[in-house]
């Protein structure tokens, strides 16, 4: 690559990055300036943290935050356990119906719960779970994507390790826990991050099944907060957006290297 090429492609990379980060920059701009500067970009605009205070006072974001946290954790733990067990079976066991079951699992890669909102709502209602955090989590607890990924990684575990543990008299679950899971750590990290960011930001399904402050996740809270019929207050909405996205943003900043590497090692490609 010539140095001109290199220079050009670096410039393109940075230009694209600026374009990509523009919404975030705008969010920060409006959040730290008074509302009058929402559409005026003068460097002498006074700074203020009032928007954060306003947003915090206007809606129970602490509660929404807690709801999202519980939701994301529940889903993640559920997915890890269920997907690990199923992935182990599909990777190492032969049993009748295995191929059909695996096809059924993969089917969920396409027919996601996000699409089946009408019937899933009916299902949740018949279980009497409307307006609970469990209702938001349940359809996502078993994930075809998770089973598939973890199975891929388990299949790369050498049989010999498995056999050695078996000879020592370890049971199936103990082998799974002591041999397979540790070797698949990167996939858990990668999958975990994808799952967390997906469910942190999920909107439609929680919108449908929640009715109250006690269950509403951050996304639904934000949407309710911003759709006031009187006019959009960008400064306050963006302050709220930043407050609620901060944990994920920071987590990504801290873990981005490990994140990419785990994807690499996980062999998601």
């Amino acid at each position, binding site marked *: 690559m010539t140095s001109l090429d290199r220079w050009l*492609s*670096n410039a*393109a*990379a940075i230009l*694209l*990055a600026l374009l*990509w*980060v523009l*919404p975030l920059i*705008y*969010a920060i701009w409006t959040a730290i300036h008074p509302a009058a500067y*929402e*559409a005026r970009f003068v460097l002498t605009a006074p700074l203020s943290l009032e928007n954060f205070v306003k947003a915090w006072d206007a809606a129970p974001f602490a509660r929404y935050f807690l709801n999202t946290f519980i939701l994301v954790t529940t889903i993640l733990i559920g997915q890890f356990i*269920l*997907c690990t*067990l199923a992935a*182990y079976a599909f990777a190492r*066991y*032969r*049993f009748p119906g295995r191929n059909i079951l695996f096809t*059924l*699992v*993969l089917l969920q*890669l*396409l*027919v*996601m*719960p*996000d*699409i*089946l*909102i*009408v*019937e899933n*709502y009916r299902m949740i209602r018949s279980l009497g779970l409307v307006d609970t955090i469990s209702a938001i989590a*349940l359809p996502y607890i*078993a994930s075809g994507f998770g*089973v598939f990924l973890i199975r*891929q990684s388990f299949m790369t575990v050498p049989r010999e390790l498995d056999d050695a543990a078996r000879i020592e008299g370890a049971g*199936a679950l103990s082998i799974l826990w002591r041999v397979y899971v540790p070797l698949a750590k990167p996939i858990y990290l990668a999958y975990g991050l994808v799952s967390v960011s997906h469910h942190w*930001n999920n909107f*439609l399904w929680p919108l*449908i099944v929640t009715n109250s402050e006690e269950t509403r996740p951050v*996304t639904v809270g*934000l*949407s309710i907060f911003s759709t006031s019929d009187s006019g*959009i207050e*960008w400064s306050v*909405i*963006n302050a709220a*957006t930043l407050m*609620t*996205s901060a944990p*994920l943003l920071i987590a990504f900043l801290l873990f981005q290297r490990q994140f*990419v590497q785990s*994807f*690499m090692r*996980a062999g*998601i*490609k």
Partner: protein
Amino acid sequence: MTRRDWIHGWLLVLPAMAFLVLFTHLPAITTIWNSFFSTPRGRRPAMFVGLDNYERLLNDPIFWKVLTNNLWFALGTIPTSIALAIAMALFVNRRFMGRGFVRMAYFTPTVLPLIAVANIWLFFYTPGFGLIDQVIGLFGYGQTNLLGEPDTALAAIMVVTIWKEAGFFMIFYLAALQTIPPQLTEAARIEGANGWTIFRRITFPLLMPTTLFVSVNAVINSFRLVDHIFILTGGGPDNASSLLLFYIYETSFRFWDTAYGATLTVVMLALLCLLAIGQFFFFDRKVHYK
């Protein structure tokens, strides 16, 4: 295959299968079942109506409109976001000043909730004082109303979608790029191949499995990502930017016509199955030879 083995196998699969059946397979089947009934209203119970809902579907201009919109949406977002994702991955796969910032910038949309950033995009698109109009105003251009005109509303929605997706897909490509042995490209370079040839002949083919994986995701997302429509256009003007899932939501949860909502979902399922038949086999073959 011992008996104990298959009991174990079944037991291990059982919990995941139970949830999958309860929230994916069963609802998919009841969707089809309910599409043959009328919507129960407070005063009237559901009745078997045969193919009435499907007949209505065929005669529903809004259905055809959102379906066409959705196809354009898929065509417009999938290739663009994949191409951008590859470009981004290639950019940040090299060392240069500011790589950390660039990588973070590409990834921010994945971390920010679409429903919240939609408000920011709404400001960008606002006629007159919005960012786009302020910028083009500097060059002497007049006001635009991208969200308020039927010709541009869907495209404006697509831009937001691409912005949202490309950075996420980049991660997969980045991981894949890092597994390509540098010797391969080195050798090609020594033989005098230029950057484009190397990409076309070596890198891109090696990225093929990733492209498959990502494109499956992108296809699903083109049916699934409707959050921003709620804020940006509400599907307007006159359904010009409405997509199938958004229409399903409106029909089922605003108009409370759940039977017709189910009928629309059946169409969505059928479309996905068609894509599944196409893509799944391709995908599966790749998986096996790995």
